[in-house]
Structure formats: C-alpha cells, structure tokens
C-alpha cells in the first residue's frame, strides 16, 4: 500500500528536476543566441549546434548507455525496477534522437546544401533510432511483464554491440560530417565563448534528460503499483 504514495512523491520530484532542466536549457539558449558570437561562415545557422550536439550526446551516448547497463543488470539481478529504468531511458532517448534527426537535416540543408547524406554519423544515428523504435515496438508486443523485460534487455544489449559496428561499417565509406570539435589536441579548437555555451548546453540537456527519466520512471512505478493494487483488490 505504501508503493503508491512513494511513487507519487517520486513523480513530483521528477517533475521538479524536469522543470530545473528545462529552465537550464532556456538559460543556455538565451546565452547561445545573445551572448555567444556568431560563427564566421555559417552565421545564425550555426546556433542549431547548441541543440543538435547536446541532444546527440544524450540520445546516442547517455540514454543508450543507461539502456545497455540496466539491461545487463536486469538479466543478472532480475529486479523489475531495473527494467523500468532501462525502458524509461529508451523512451526518453527516442525523443532526443528524434530531435537530433530533425535538427540535423535542417542544419545540413543550410550548411552542406543537402538534407541527408549516408555518412557515418548520420547512418549510425538513424540505425540507433531504428533500434530504439524496435525496442519500443517489442515492448508493446509482449503482454507478460517478466518476458517483456527479458526480451527488451536482450535487444538492449545486442543493440549496444551493434552501434559501434554500424559506425565502423559506414566509416569505411567516405564521411562528410565534421569530426568532433572538442577534446582533440592539435586540431582547430572551438573558440572559448562557444565552448562554454556548448559545455553548459551539455549540462542543461543532461539535467533535462535526468528529469524526464526520473519522471517517466516514477510514472512506470506508479502504474505497476496501481496494477498490483487492482490485482490484490480483485483477489
């Protein structure tokens, strides 16, 4: 009986974290638009950088790493809460991956002159998106919670191994997408003020992701607790 109030409190806490994250994203955006210099050749178009890159960080690395790690943990420990974290992260990751795949072509059309190209990063992102979608579709196609959790964990782990392979495969073709502009010694660096904006956008997006994840997870717990209560009542 205590499961429901505690899940409701967790839902509230998740909401607060989400609001903080959203406010941080807004602050970073004001900074990006007003207080960060315009890029010399791309002009205003480059501002999409501060959404595109942090979303990619969340979708491709953070959210998927959480899916992979919690999938392994679930198969080892069989605690249903681990599955709820993995699936919540997959759902939130899908949202961020959608943002990446929408902002990317808009930026690409302006700067490269093409909406889409089959380059290494674009293709890996697209296929990761397909895995996210397969994960969500698989969840909806299995009724029994234990089996659903196991199947999704297996797919989550296989997907985590697939992504580097896709990257290497497409890397053998030629690549158009710029290499990372941070953390590479000896190459042209991102100017300081842009770097600070970029790094703070990483922090803001990470907090926003954490808030969405916490809220989505609390919601899943609440739903499980309510289903349990109904099952107890009808017994």
């Amino acid at each position: 009986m205590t499961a429901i109030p505690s899940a409701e409190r967790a839902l509230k806490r998740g909401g607060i974290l989400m609001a903080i994250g959203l406010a941080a994203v807004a602050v970073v955006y004001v900074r990006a638009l007003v207080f960060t210099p315009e890029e010399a050749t791309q002009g205003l178009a480059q501002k999409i950088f501060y959404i595109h890159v942090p979303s990619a960080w969340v979708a491709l690395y953070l959210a998927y790493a959480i899916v992979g790690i919690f999938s392994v943990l679930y198969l080892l420990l069989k605690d249903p809460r681990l599955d709820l974290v993995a699936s919540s992260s997959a759902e939130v990751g899908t949202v961020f991956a959608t943002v990446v795949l929408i902002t990317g072509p808009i930026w690409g059309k302006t700067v490269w002159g093409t909406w889409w190209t089959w380059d290494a990063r674009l293709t890996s992102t697209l296929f990761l998106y397909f895995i996210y979608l397969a994960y969500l579709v698989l969840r909806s196609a299995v009724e029994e919670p234990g089996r659903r959790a196991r199947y999704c964990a297996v797919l989550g782990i296989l997907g985590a191994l697939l992504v580097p392979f896709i990257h290497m495969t497409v890397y053998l073709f030629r690549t158009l997408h710029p290499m990372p502009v941070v953390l590479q010694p000896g190459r042209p660096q991102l100017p300081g003020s842009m770097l600070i904006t970029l790094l703070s956008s990483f922090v803001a997006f990470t907090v926003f992701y954490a808030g969405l994840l916490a809220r989505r997870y609390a919601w899943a717990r609440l739903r499980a607790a309510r289903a349990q209560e109904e099952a107890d009542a009808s017994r």
Partner: protein
Amino acid sequence: MGEVLAQAWAIAAKDLLLEFRSRTAFLSALVFTALVLAIFNFARDPTAVSSVDLAPSVLWITFSFAGVLGLNRAFGLEKENRAIDGLLLSPASRTALFLGKTLANLVFVGAVEAIALPLFALFFNVPLLEILGPLVLVIALATVGFVTVGTLMSSMAVNTRFGEMMLLVLVLPFLLTPVSTAAEMTARLFAHRPFAEWAPWLKLLAAYDIAFVVLCTLVFEFTLEE
C-alpha cells in the same frame, strides 16, 4: 564442449529431418528467391544501369530477405503443442539448443543460396566460376552473421504479437553490417579488384561474426521461459 556439439547436432538433425520430410519451407523459400531475382530484372532500366552494376545489391537483398523469412520456422516449429518444453526438459543444454537451431538455419539458408546462386548468375549474366572461391567465403561469413542474430531474434519473435513482422523489425537493423560489407566485397569481386582492396571489409565482417556469435550464445537462455 564435445557433448554440447553432439547435442547441438542432434537438435539440428531433428529440425532438418522434419524439413526434409515436408520440404514446404524450403521450396517456398526457393520459389520466393527465384521470383525476387526475376522481378528485380524488370524493376530496373536496362539502358541506364547495367546488370553487373546492380547485381551485388540484388544478390544481397535476395539472400537476406530469403534468409530472414525462413528463420521464424526454427522456433515456430517448437511452439506447436509446446514442443519447446520437451526440448528444455531434455538433457541438452541451452547453449546446445541455440547452436543446434542456428546450425539447422544455416543449412537451410545455405541450401537456398546454393541453388539461387547459379540462377542469379544465369539471370544477371555474371561469370561466377572464376571468383567462386572468394565469393563462397563472403556468402558464408555474411550468412553466419545474419542467421545467428536472426535465430536469437526468432526465439523472441515467435512469442510476440505479429511475430513475422516483429522478426523483421528486430533483425533488419542488424543486417546493415553483414549485408553491406558482403555487397561491397561482392561488387569488388565482380570487378576483379585485388584482395587488398576488399580486405578491410572482410576483417570487419569476421569481427562482426565473432562478436555476435559469442553474444547471442550468451544471452540466448534469457529468451526462454525459466
């Protein structure tokens, strides 16, 4: 290890014997392959794209789809009368079960490919004999890659709603590496390029096979009921 392989072989032999007696799945996969090859020939503009340029993609689209469509059979077979319970109660280990199912699928897909390949050479006018050795190696490696992942996925897909569609949704993302590396190598083989030019693709495909055979064998037991 020897025991596991013996059990795997027993399971594969059982599946292949069942298939050999009815031959329904095999014949339909074969007819499907022949149809796809024939239809592809009409779905192109012969004046714009020469058949040799198109041949590698046609070969790999045909093989991968024919392969994946046959995969649901492996565990669909065991769903009837819950025959899978019998297999799980038998002394055969889970690993042996997975290897046996994969082996049977490999023989099945390999047999379809062995008949489809001459047909492909005939329809697309590709001289196969001089590159047969390396081509068979490429086909074998790519087939091992997608059949292993496909067998694992089919063990899950048979227990979901819309199982056949689900199998495609689960497997197709995993086809990118084996199919695109194989198609690249096939194109270079047809063009008689030196080995050094397609060696990086071969290495990547071999790495994919090793990684996924190991991982799929490890996680297979989680797709079964406890």
